[in-house]
């Protein structure tokens, strides 16, 4: 199986890169995706970013990508191929590419690497990620207002800090506008399994949830929400087409501006290794259009919240906040520091159930 996959990757690489060898003066930019570009979620949005880069810089750049690259040894091979074939800037867009990126980068000091969602850097390796939790604050606010049963269902993937952070920020925002609100969290232990995601959505609805949030990649939950006549939010992509009535808003990953800025930096010779963690303000996290189903005053307050976060006057995690076990975390008015957020592995007070280890 693995062998076939590597073969397939090799063939894709050969086909994808063969046309690229002609124009040497262009900056060649490579992208490595963990899923298919047609997942309408995570990898799809990275590819939208690549397209934005092509559109913005035109014939100054030449891009190529390889999709569905397994995390691990295959990723290292693909990166090496890209570096050997003259790519000077390579984006590796999944957490599991972290060590392969570092390994390959050490062998090609004149090639710039950009690794998404990781935390290890080098002179020629930058990291970048988005503050998705800021978006979750906004949709949590909407969810708190829109729920009639005071029960919000949350389909979670893996218990990693990024997902835990999302649950906490959404819960705090919902609780702030609706003290009665309860979160029911189901861990499905997969990023992508439409059947299981749909089953989880049904189980949550069965348990009284009338608004569903998700941190998984497929639009299955949105489809079920539409069918059952409840509300949901788009994840990574807008997902409007899957739930014209169910979709309240969405969190949209927008990588385009970052990719353009980084490619320009390489062209100017100003590229340096950095750590970027951008949110709503620079537009890396987009909030999808509000549905008409949301009352005007809630739309206004949600917009104000988003504006406040963008302006830096509001923070998703502002004290007083206690941890689930009742111990103090943030004092009144205190905001969370990035270090704690980056490694968050606890629920805030009020969320029921145990966080899987």
């Amino acid at each position, binding site marked *: 199986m693995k062998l076939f996959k590597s073969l*397939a990757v090799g063939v894709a690489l050969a086909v994808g890169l063969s046309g690229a060898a002609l124009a040497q003066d262009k900056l060649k930019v490579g992208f490595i995706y963990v899923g298919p570009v*047609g997942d309408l979620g995570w990898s799809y949005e990275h590819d939208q970013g690549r397209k934005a880069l092509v559109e913005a810089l035109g014939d100054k750049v030449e891009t190529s990508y390889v999709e569905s690259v397994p995390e691990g040894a295959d990723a290292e091979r693909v990166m090496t191929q890209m570096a050997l074939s003259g790519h000077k800037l390579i984006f590796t867009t999944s957490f599991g590419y972290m060590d392969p990126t570092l390994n390959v980068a050490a062998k090609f000091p004149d090639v710039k690497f950009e690794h998404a969602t990781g935390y290890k850097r080098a002179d020629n390796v930058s990291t970048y990620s988005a503050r998705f939790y800021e978006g979750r604050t906004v949709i949590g606010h909407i969810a708190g207002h829109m729920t009639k049963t005071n029960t919000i269902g949350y389909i979670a993937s893996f218990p990693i800090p990024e997902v835990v952070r999302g649950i906490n920020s959404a819960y705090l925002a919902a609780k702030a506008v609706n003290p009665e609100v309860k979160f029911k969290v189901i861990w499905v232990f997969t990023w992508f399994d439409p*059947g299981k995601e749909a089953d989880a959505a049904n*189980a949550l609805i069965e*348990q009284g949830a009338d608004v569903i949030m998700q941190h998984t990649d497929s639009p299955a939950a949105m*489809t079920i929400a539409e069918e059952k006549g409840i509300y949901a939010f788009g994840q990574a992509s807008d997902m409007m087409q899957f739930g014209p009535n169910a979709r309240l808003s969405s969190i949209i990953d927008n990588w385009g501006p970052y990719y353009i800025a980084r490619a320009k930096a390489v062209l100017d010779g100003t590229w340096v290794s950095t750590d970027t963690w951008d949110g709503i303000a620079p537009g890396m996290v987009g909030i999808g259009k509000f549905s008409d189903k949301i009352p005007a005053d809630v739309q206004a307050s949600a917009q104000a919240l988003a504006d406040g976060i963008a302006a830096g006057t509001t923070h998703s995690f502002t004290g007083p906040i206690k941890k689930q076990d009742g111990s103090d975390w943030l004092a009144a008015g205190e905001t969370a520091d990035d270090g704690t957020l980056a490694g968050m592995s606890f629920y805030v007070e009020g969320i029921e159930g145990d966080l899987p280890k």
Partner: protein
Amino acid sequence: MDLSTINPVALIASLMVASTPILLAAIGELVVEKAGVLNLGVEGMMITGAIFGFAISVETQNPWLGLIAAMAGGAIMSLIFGILTQYFLSNQVATGLALTLFGLGFSALVGHSYTGIKPPSFPRLDVQVLTDIPYLGPILLNHDYMVYISLLIVALVWFFLTFTRAGLVLRSVGENHAAAHALGYKVVRIRLLAIMFGGACAGLGGAYLSLIRVPQWTEGMTAGSGWIALALVVFASWKPWRIILGAYLFGGVTILQLNLQAVGVNIPVAYLSMAPYVVTIVVLVIISSDRKRVSINAPASLGRVFHASN
């Protein structure tokens, strides 16, 4: 935690929906293996059925035509496998794996323009008076037609294999293809028909996923259910009725663990997540613990290459 909020009626109703795709794929694979062929391409045939069924349903706005297209799609895929393994005598394991990879890629190509479209909704059995019977009504009488059709297919397969002459011939081909050949049965032709039946069932299972259970098209949406169907055939020790037991057990524990999580039961989630696999394996191992009987059930020529010269 309040377990009383789990509604057993709704639980049973949704477990039947969750189990139907693997039930269909597994009963098809059972017939294939009974004929002595191991087709590991179930996942690839399922996903092909999922996109064929979805595309034709959307184009014609008729879900029944979609299901027929899904069966045809799965059968055509399996025919590729059949011709390669039966006429060109290729290795069944490698060909089956290749079929899965091909199916996943091919469906992604065909399905490119079908993401984000809503398929026509599927009719449900709704016998007014009967559906209102408390408990029994919603459990037994208020599903989409495919749930009943899947059970009917299992019953027909059981009847066919146990009581008909053709079924006996098919089993004999699976047990000892040389002897069957010596008796004048067309081994290759019988196996091809079995393989196509398996492909059609897998395609139907895939279409159930994309048309009824989720209903949408997303690349790779079968997400490994073909492999579970393959395992079910072995654990059910090649007995049709046990396929129902295994599929509903697996689907049931999956649905149950999701509901238990939603209720907030105090069991570590990791245990809940592995429960479907563990429970299904344990139960089926127990009921098939008599080694002698299992070796009788396993087709003796399973996976072996047949050529008329030997």
